[in-house]
């Protein structure tokens, strides 16, 4: 069996669909709050919260929590590393698509 092409290894942290959705939404903006991320990704509150925590622990996101008029407001934004990781991931996926497409 041929050894796997290391260039085609997918970033497992980023590739998980929920996290990929969060990172993709954030890649086109500076920051978004919890409500917007929930509305756009369709994740439940609990799942979104868990994914955000994982991504923050991995250094891909920064999370800012504050209280505005006694209501908590959570805002997430991509770090430089997070932006690089999501861009690298999309390049990997494009490579894979090219590799396995009929003409590739």
């Amino acid at each position, binding site marked *: 069996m041929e050894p796997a092409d290391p260039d085609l290894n997918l970033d497992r942290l980023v590739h998980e669909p929920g996290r990929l959705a969060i990172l993709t939404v954030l890649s086109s903006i500076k920051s978004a709050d919890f409500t917007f*991320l929930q509305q756009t990704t369709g994740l439940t509150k609990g799942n979104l919260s868990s994914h955000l925590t994982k991504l923050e622990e991995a250094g891909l996101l920064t999370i800012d929590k504050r209280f505005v008029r006694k209501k908590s407001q959570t805002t997430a934004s991509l770090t430089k590393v997070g932006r690089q990781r999501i861009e690298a991931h999309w390049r990997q996926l494009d490579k894979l698509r090219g590799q396995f497409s009929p003409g590739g």
Partner: protein
Amino acid sequence: METKALASVGGNYYTLRGLFALPTGLIFLAAGVFNTPPIGAEPVSPSAPWFVIALAVAGVGYYAFNRYYVATFGRVEPSRGTLVRITIYTVLCAAAVCVGITLDMQQDWPISLYGAAFAGALLAYYRLLDVFRPYHLGLLGGLVVLCLLPIWGGAHDKVSLVMIPMGLVTIAVGLLDHRDLLSSMRQARRAGVDEDVNGTR
């Protein structure tokens, strides 16, 4: 996963909050109706208090729609690049409208350059911000054509009169932008997934 839908929903959110166009359209309509005979006559007419009321209603509208968007869809801060583009295009649009209105007041042409500049600038604005839709072309393109028809010469005050179709088109475009935003949100949710952190549904 439809990444295009997910990536564009954040970038376009700021521009497609179309309900904000309703108060703007109301202001245009009020300015047009209350300055045009038989209801109003420039420069000051008994209809002036009604315009002030329309302004107040528009102000309440901006506030209410802002609350609606924040409560329903949340807060988004566009990227620095998007903000710079929006600012530059807005200034250029305002400049085009100023040129149009000045020429309309100085020259006695039978066309409305103010309305044409307004619609043309908005068309360019949507195109440059990558949110151009067929209804923009239909409504704003239609307004450009209407304003360039030589029918405005006999108007008592064509700058005010043209604000009536401008207001109607602004409201229609705003409603359709909002519908587009709702549909892009639905599309993004379909593209996303609801599964637990371990990857099982």
